[in-house]
């Protein structure tokens, strides 16, 4: 059996699955310590199922812990950020265009050193090994342990970064390294930002992995554990300790994939109705469609691949004003205080949950407390909520595709049977823990994103090289060799560049090795 856990900001959800069947599920408030939360969640689902920890063969966790550490500037390492590419790129050194408080919490030192390549792979300047050794000595003298290395055009050629790491590690073996070529895509500032974020989580990541490991020991589960990452694939604990930044968007991704799995579809629009927001994402061939836009995290521009989401401020806890014209719904929410502030729970705040109870869609709290609401107003308000959700779904729907809508999340009953006229709507079982299911079913994944010069190389050969690299990465991330499949190939000719340069992105995925 396998366990999937999703540690969100508010709730920790867990499921125990036997093959494709959900055996037990549990929802509890998130604890400050990741280890404690994992321990409690696993104990609960094992108890419900009446089984011992020995039956568990795999544990997969999705967590917002690292995201929150950055957002709250909590427990971050100071980073020595080194950019290779001088004299190019000096207009904006590392930590440029950062929110002041985040820079204050993470900036250790900065160096712009020779190195880097041009779009055609030709060197900008030769790597300066003596300067790198000096930088390593200086980092140690400054009390810094975590190095972020970013080379200009590293997605095209990572040699400078790996060589610089080897030189610095030989000089100062205690240093740890985050390389931009392992983390981000084209766009030196966005990639460097992500690399620095990864580097500032180095100590936290090692601690969290240790605390999960000891939690598993305490509950008698003796099996490998994995973390789910932004793209819906998983990574081994060792890998996660080195790449905590890859967990940043795992929450919505798990929800989208879990919803598809529970509903038995590979292509769908997933509507996750929570307490404060409703998120709509698109599932395409079993994976979330990714956003093409630059993503922002904690006020910082990065180029992580995030799921393409439309988020609206409507959820079960959204505050409703029937007096306003038109009726006002959200974005303010009673959030975690739903069970004290909502009318049906004896509070004085009218929420979306109260409307759903008054409309007879939901039976929670004391329905008589909302019996006096004008039925005509309730009907107008509930149809307004549906209209907002339908509009969000509409915005995510591609031209002329007829994929079903899957409704999940605690607030799914808020949307009535008359919604989404003319569209197929699926409401799977266990919809309230779809995100934990998404964790449990995660595959190991690998990807490649490089620019190829098609001078002397056919397009097919270039795609083959990219696929080989993605497969290698996938096995490296924990997949069983031989089961790896290519799930996405995307070849984009580069505008303005001379000759025939093409950027090829390949994703591979496969079930984790037993």
């Amino acid at each position, binding site marked *: 059996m396998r366990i999937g856990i999703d540690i969100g900001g508010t709730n920790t959800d867990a499921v125990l699955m036997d093959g494709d069947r959900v055996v037990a599920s549990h929802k509890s408030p998130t604890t400050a310590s990741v280890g404690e939360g994992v321990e409690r969640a696993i104990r609960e689902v094992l108890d419900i199922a009446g089984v011992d920890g020995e039956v568990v063969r795999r544990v997969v966790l999705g967590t917002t812990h690292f995201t929150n550490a950055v957002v709250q500037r909590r427990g971050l390492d100071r980073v020595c950020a080194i950019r290779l*590419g001088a004299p190019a*790129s000096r207009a904006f050194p590392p930590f440029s265009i950062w*929110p002041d408080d985040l820079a204050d919490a993470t900036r250790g030192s900065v160096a712009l050193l020779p190195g880097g390549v041009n*779009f055609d792979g030709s060197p*900008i300047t030769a790597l300066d090994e003596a300067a790198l050794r000096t930088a390593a000595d200086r980092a140690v003298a400054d009390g810094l342990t975590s190095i972020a290395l970013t080379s200009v055009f590293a997605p095209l050629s990572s040699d400078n970064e790996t060589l610089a790491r080897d030189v610095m590690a030989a000089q100062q073996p205690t240093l740890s390294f985050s390389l931009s070529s392992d983390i981000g895509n084209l766009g030196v500032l966005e990639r460097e930002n992500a690399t620095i974020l990864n580097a500032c989580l180095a100590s936290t990541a090692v601690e969290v992995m240790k605390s999960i490991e000891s939690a598993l020991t305490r509950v008698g589960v003796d099996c490998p554990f994995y973390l789910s990452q932004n793209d819906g694939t998983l990574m081994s604990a060792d890998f996660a300790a080195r790449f905590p930044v890859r967990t940043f968007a795992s929450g919505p991704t798990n929800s989208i994939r879990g919803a598809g799995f529970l509903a038995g579809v590979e292509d769908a629009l997933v509507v996750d109705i929570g307490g404060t927001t409703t998120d709509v994402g698109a599932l395409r061939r079993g994976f979330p469609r990714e956003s093409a836009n630059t993503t922002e995290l904690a006020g910082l521009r990065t180029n992580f691949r995030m799921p393409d989401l439309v988020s609206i401020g409507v959820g079960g806890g959204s505050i409703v004003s029937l007096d306003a014209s038109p009726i006002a719904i959200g974005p303010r929410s009673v959030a975690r205080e739903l069970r004290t502030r909502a009318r049906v729970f004896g509070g004085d705040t009218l929420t979306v949950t109260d409307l759903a109870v008054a409309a007879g869609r939901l039976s929670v709290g004391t329905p008589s407390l909302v019996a006096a609401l004008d039925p005509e107003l309730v009907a107008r308000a509930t149809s307004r909520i549906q209209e907002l959700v339908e509009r969000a779904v509409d915005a*995510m729907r591609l031209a002329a595709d007829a994929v079903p809508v899957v409704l999940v999340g605690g607030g799914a009953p808020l949307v009535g049977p008359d919604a989404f006229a003319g569209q197929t709507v699926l409401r799977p079982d266990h919809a309230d823990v779809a995100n934990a299911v998404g964790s449990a079913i995660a595959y190991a994944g690998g990807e490649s994103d490089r620019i190829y010069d098609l001078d002397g190389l056919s397009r097919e050969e270039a795609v083959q090289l990219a696929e080989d690299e993605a497969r290698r990465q996938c096995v490296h991330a924990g997949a069983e060799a031989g089961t790896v499949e290519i799930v996405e190939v995307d070849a984009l000719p580069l505008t303005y*560049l001379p000759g025939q340069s093409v950027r090829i992105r390949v994703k591979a995925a496969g079930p984790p090795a037993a």
Partner: protein
Amino acid sequence: MCRLLSRRLPSVPSDQNVAVGGWLASPGMRRRLSERDIEAIAEGSAILGTGGGGDPYLGSRFACRAIREHGEPELVSVDELPDDALAVAAAVVGSPVPMMEKLSLGEELGRAFDGMQEAMGRPITAMMSPEIGGVNTVVSIALAAERGLPVVDADSMGRAFPEVQLVTQTIHGIGVSPMSMADEHGNVVIMKAVDNFWTERLARSTVIQFGAIAPALAFPLTKEQIELASVHGSVSLARDIGEILLERSGEDALRAVLDRTGGVELFAGKISGVDRHVTGGWAVGEVHIEGADAFAGATMRVTFQNENLMAYVGDEPMACVPDLLTIVEQDSCRGITTERLRFGSRVSVLAMPCDEQWLSPRGLEIAGPRHFGYDVDYRPFEGRRPSPALLAARG
């Protein structure tokens, strides 16, 4: 695009906002360009940039930093220039991807400026943006701040175009040469070309050697030439539009923008398809929009080559280049660049009048529909009237 920028900039006290749209009413008044103005100009450029010009994020950050370090540059109207003025334009030439990696706005930009001054043999006294749209508008302003020069309230397109020769100077036979380009190593190349088509060719070859991206200084212009051949008041117009967008949204913003530019809402609906490919180095394609509300039942097709060029309903052109065609997000009224067009977005298509110089026979010859390969003659869109803002700036 510039949403990131707005979060980090101090907001202007509300009593200063009454100046929206008031710049041109008092042409004698001198203005300095603040960080807030840069933010507004970037937003306005996304409307006047007709879907092109790229992401102005880096350029805006660069200009704001230059203003913080060197002070606010003065914005002067064409009339205010001294008779012996020499204005030049700064541009980043090349591909957006190398720009994202090499951030070519360091010492190379200053060296290109110095190279230009040397080639001219006399001091440069003002900066003038080559186009309104994307990174180049704000880079010229940044350089003005750095060198303590005024910014001329004008540009050479009144919009964005993808080629160096598509400037109002070409209509009047004024050369953009010499051009000075520099790289990060200290190399400077000065080009003196026989015409603007040659400048485009030579610049493209040089930029490849410089890593497919380089800052360039060009477009040397005297006051007389600027009076004759530039689009007057376009920086103010971009700034005014930006102020509207920063203060208002939706229908309210849309009406105000149309009022300011003399444009019309050509169509409104939902993007139902985007088709994009690369031909000859251009991002070419078309977007389909399913009509809603007053436009329900119809479909509009907007074609683009870096910039939006033509809008059709069926086979009937409803608006065409060189008039401005911009697709805006309905809720915010912010301009959407062609690379960010997305299925499902609710949008309005705005048609706005180009500067009248583009409607001359020579203007239409170099930048009309036929230049871009369309077998139709230019036709004004329904309800077209000359831009009130640009006319006012011309006096």
